[in-house]
């Protein structure tokens, strides 16, 4: 039995550690664990085998063995007690922190092995470090003494957990505070909301007396139906500053169902009230209930669980009621004024209640006042701006797809009546900010855009007003210069290949001179009357004209023809002949002229180059002479023999001559070294000469004055 197990374990360890994969084969692992678990003897066998495997000179084998060891280490106490005495060896083999125990190849697996092993050591230290001191000491040694970087998984996780908990605590404290205040305020709030809802219900009832026959249905359904009926009507009356809204109203009006109740003078006040109530609902009640709800859901009160539940229930009820009312109002077409405002309101749901309230007051005041005035004023010009508005909708990015749809449907069936005719003659305006306050003549509050934050620099003057003329000034319609696009005429001068020049230049073709109107053959069609008047003057300088002025050449040919021929209706062909003749003449003369010029230029060049060459030669010669003198003549202090000088000059001359030809390439040029050698040589010669001279001089002196010596 034991032998069988041993074989089995050996096989399993072999097969588990032979794979090139980065993970253990789960099946093999399972079998391995099962068989090792069977008895303590098997654990010992497995330990011996694994430790042997760990000594294999291959990081991949070691890595897989390490995975197996980890599996057993975490499970078997016996295995731990076997491994711990050899823990240092284990660490050396898997982490290789000592120079004489480096990890074997392959290197990528060695890295993996080391990382994994360190992770395991860390993990084991956490799990069993208390019981197995060597593990703890080994970990400490690696960390504190060798200062290896451990992955430190637990620390990181603990840190994250701690941070999360702290945050949780903080929010819980805040929530607790909110909850307490909520408990105090709730009855008042509830009463207020209830009264608002009552009022709204009343309004609905008054508005739709004919909805009585719906009484059988639920109240909610009733209201909804009313809403559907009156939807379009509400749109019409509901003021909005944007032109698009106006358009939309228009569209709605045209689509109006006849049976829908409209807002009349009688029920206008009711609509107004309803609008106010809706505003209140949207801006104050809904966000606050939302906030309460979230508070109640997140708060975790230490006691009064039941109270919390009751509260929660109440708030949820309240909120659902409010939502129902909102839906009715929206069905009736009452909406918040600006998209920005609405979104703001929705976002502030998450914010603190105070901020919300402050903002809300400002926003409502402003939008209502402005909306009404603007809507009134715009109504007067609406027919004129209709077309423009269509342009507007096309250009602007519309937020409401519904509106657009309606508009297009409206466009389709607009085609009759006065409106249509007016539309035809209405000017087309491009989109601009001025359209926003079209025809508006009211003041505007300066600090109530719904965007300003708490200004910490000082108090914000919410009453500040921008006067209407200032707004008009700011919204002056701008127009931009658009150049009138005209087609540039082609040159159309006849080309040599029979075609016409197709260059398009504004005034003057660089090839054919100024652009004149020409016929289909390329012949300029000058106004002939003018030609007749000017013919006399042109006649005198005709030849000259043809020669010099290419620009007028073509035009001047025409006068000549008119003059020569008595008949003004000279045939086009003869005229063309003359013209071509003239052109030919001109070209011939030009050619001669150019030729002469070229010859002159060539001659000048030749003379110039000859002069240059002479000058160069002279310079070179003088240089050569002076150089040779410097080398020899000066040193010796007397003129050297002519032949020598000539030789020097001659060699230079030769060199110079050779410079130009191919032979120069073959000839070795004197390098710096050569020149230095030459100089040195001459220096030596000079020294020798000086020596010689002084000696001679001495000898002469001695001979001359023997008694003085």
């Amino acid at each position, binding site marked *: 039995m034991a032998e069988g197990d041993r074989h089995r374990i050996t096989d399993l360890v072999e097969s588990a550690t032979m794979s090139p994969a980065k993970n253990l084969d789960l099946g093999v692992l399972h079998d391995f664990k099962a068989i090792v678990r069977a008895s303590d003897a098997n654990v010992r066998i497995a330990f011996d085998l694994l430790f042997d495997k760990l000594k294999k000179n291959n990081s991949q084998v070691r890595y897989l063995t390490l995975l197996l060891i980890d599996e057993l280490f975490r499970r078997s*106490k016996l295995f731990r007690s076997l491994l711990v*005495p050899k823990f240092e060896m284990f660490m050396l083999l898997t982490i290789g922190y000592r120079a004489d125990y480096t990890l074997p190849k392959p290197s990528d697996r060695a890295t993996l092995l080391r990382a994994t092993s360190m992770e395991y050591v860390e993990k084991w230290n*956490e799990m*069993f*470090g*208390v*019981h197995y*001191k060597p593990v703890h000491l080994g970990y400490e040694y690696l960390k504190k*003494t060798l200062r290896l970087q451990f992955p430190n998984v*637990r620390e990181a996780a603990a840190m994250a957990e701690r941070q999360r908990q702290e945050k949780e605590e903080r929010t819980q404290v805040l929530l607790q505070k909110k909850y307490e205040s909520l408990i105090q305020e709730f009855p008042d709030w509830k009463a207020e909301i209830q009264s608002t809802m009552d009022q709204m219900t009343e309004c609905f009832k008054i508005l739709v007396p004919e909805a009585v026959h719906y009484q059988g249905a639920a109240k909610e359904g009733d209201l909804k139906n009313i809403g559907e009926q009156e939807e379009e009507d509400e749109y019409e009356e509901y003021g909005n500053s944007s032109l698009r809204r106006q358009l939309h109203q228009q569209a709605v009006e045209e689509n109006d169902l006849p049976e829908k109740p409209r807002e009349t003078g009688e029920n206008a006040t009711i609509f107004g009230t309803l609008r106010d109530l809706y505003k209140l609902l949207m801006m104050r009640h809904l966000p606050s209930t939302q906030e309460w709800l979230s508070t109640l859901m997140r708060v975790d009160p230490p006691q009064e669980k039941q109270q919390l539940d009751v509260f929660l229930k109440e708030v949820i009820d309240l909120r659902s009621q409010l939502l129902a009312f909102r839906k009715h109002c929206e069905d009736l077409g009452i909406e918040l004024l600006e998209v920005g405002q609405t979104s703001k309101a929705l976002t502030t749901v998450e914010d603190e209640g105070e901020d919300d309230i402050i903002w809300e007051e400002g926003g409502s005041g402003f939008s209502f006042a402005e909306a009404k005035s603007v809507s009134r004023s715009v109504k007067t010009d609406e027919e004129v701006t209709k077309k423009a508005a269509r342009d507007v909708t096309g250009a602007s990015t519309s937020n409401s797809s519904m509106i657009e749809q309606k508009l297009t449907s409206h466009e389709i069936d607009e085609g009759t009546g006065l409106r249509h005719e007016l539309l035809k003659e209405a000017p087309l305006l491009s989109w601009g900010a001025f359209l926003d306050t079209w025809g508006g003549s009211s003041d505007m509050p300066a600090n109530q855009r719904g965007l300003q934050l708490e200004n910490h620099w000082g108090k914000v003057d919410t009453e500040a007003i921008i006067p209407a003329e200032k707004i008009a000034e700011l919204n002056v319609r701008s127009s931009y210069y658009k150049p009138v696009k005209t087609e540039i005429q082609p040159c159309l001068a006849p080309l040599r290949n029979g075609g016409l020049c197709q260059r398009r230049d504004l005034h003057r073709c660089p090839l054919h001179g100024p652009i004149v109107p020409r016929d289909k053959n390329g012949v300029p069609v000058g106004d002939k009357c003018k030609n007749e008047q000017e013919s006399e003057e042109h006649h005198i300088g005709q030849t000259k004209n043809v020669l010099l002025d290419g620009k007028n050449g073509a035009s001047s040919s025409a006068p000549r023809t008119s003059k020569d021929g008595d008949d003004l209706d000279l045939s086009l062909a003869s005229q063309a002949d003359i013209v071509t003749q003239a052109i030919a003449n001109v070209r011939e003369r030009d050619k001669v002229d150019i030729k002469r010029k070229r010859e002159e230029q060539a001659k000048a060049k030749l003379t110039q180059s000859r002069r240059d060459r002479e000058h160069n030669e002279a310079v070179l010669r003088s240089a050569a002479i002076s150089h040779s003198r410097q080398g020899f003549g000066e040193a010796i202090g007397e003129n050297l023999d002519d032949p020598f000088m000539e030789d020097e000059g001659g060699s230079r001359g030769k060199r110079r001559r050779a410079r130009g030809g191919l032979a120069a390439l073959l000839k070795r040029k004197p390098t710096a070294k050569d020149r230095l050698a030459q100089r040195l040589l001459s220096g030596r010669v000079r020294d020798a000469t000086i020596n010689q001279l002084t000696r001679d001089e001495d000898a002469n002196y001695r001979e001359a004055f023997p008694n003085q010596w």
Partner: protein
Amino acid sequence: MLRRLKRRELGATPPRSVATHVRGKRVRSIELASHKEIVSAHNSGINSLQIDGSEARYLLAGASDGSVGVYDTQQATTFDSITHTAKHEALFTVDKSVPQGHMYSVSSVQWYPVDTGLFVTGSFDNNINLWDTNTLQVEQQFRMPGKVYAVAMSAMATTHMLVASGTEDVRVRLCDLASGAFTHTLSGHRDGVWAVQWSAASEWVLISGGCDGAIRFWDIRQAGCFQVLDQNRSQLGRRPPIVKSVPGATASVSGSSRGESLRVHRQGEQQHSRLNTPPPIRRKFRAKDFEAQRQHPGMVSTLDKATAHYGSVTALQTTDDGLYLFSAGTDSRVRLWDMQSGCNTLVNYEATRIRTHQGTQLAVSSDSSLLFVASAHSIQAYDVWTGHLHSKLSGHYDTVNCCAFHVNDQELYSGSSDRQILVWAPPAHTPLEDLDEKTKEGGALFVKDEDAWSD
């Protein structure tokens, strides 16, 4: 155990036998202590450890970064309730930031034997410092000619307070703490001295072991060394009767006053005469004044070329009764010497791996039953008399440099290059099961040490 106590109560056994028995048992069960932990305050390896002799309470540790720390082995500074470990942190450390503090590695430390008010440290910066424990200042500094490898004070001295120092220099110098001067310069070694130890039997006898492999015995009252241990001179079995061996007698080379000379002496003389004719000159600069030195009676022993180890002597340790001497050498041998006869007892301590670049410390249990040898990364506990390996204490992850035995608690402290000071103690009373329960209460992350087969 109870029977023993009963017998002791009845007076059937001699007074000390129970205690001896218990101590012996405890020593033999020594292992890595899980209940006690010394938190090393040093940044590098520990070179030397010593427990003070007056209270057997304070552990003095010298480290390679030049710092010296003192640990209280009895009173834990903190107690980790989760792991049930008492943590002993350093009471204080002194390092190079203190004026005159050691710049380089502290190679050896030594408590003042009378009380814990002073301690002596020797360092590789050539200085021996005398520290005041209370002010943590250097009280005296002795400038040595070379690196200091070992310092030693006699535990039983009543008439002198000399610090023996082994340095790079061949001479052993004795520094007098009372006067602040060198009182003795003992010449005889032919190379640096790595180990010095005072005899536990006589306050005048100093033992030194050098890199030349010689162990020399000095009587500080007279010139020259009186004994050189020779590894080839051995005795098996019982040693010769003690009656005849009078310590001073062996030293006299003149032989005029002492008529009866021991075998040791005779042999030494024979060696001397044998070696005299061809003077083996190891150091050429010494050859010049060799003749002059030979005239001096104290220098005669320098001619004794007997060696105790094939290599440097790295550690010396006497047994508590002062009868035996252990020496360790770079030949990875530990030898047991009979101090009286000066013979190698030929106890073969099984394979050891003693570090070869510096001196170490050996530790002997108080009843002279176990010898602890720092061997590579572990400490090997040998049976003193048979030389068999009793247990191998492994827990360090780097070379173990030194070990010190705590007599009263039967604990062993070991210092290693992995900068840990480990405590080896008999198993504590806290059973693991108890510990496990408590850990569960603590809510710690580690798990019970049990089999956990999930599948």
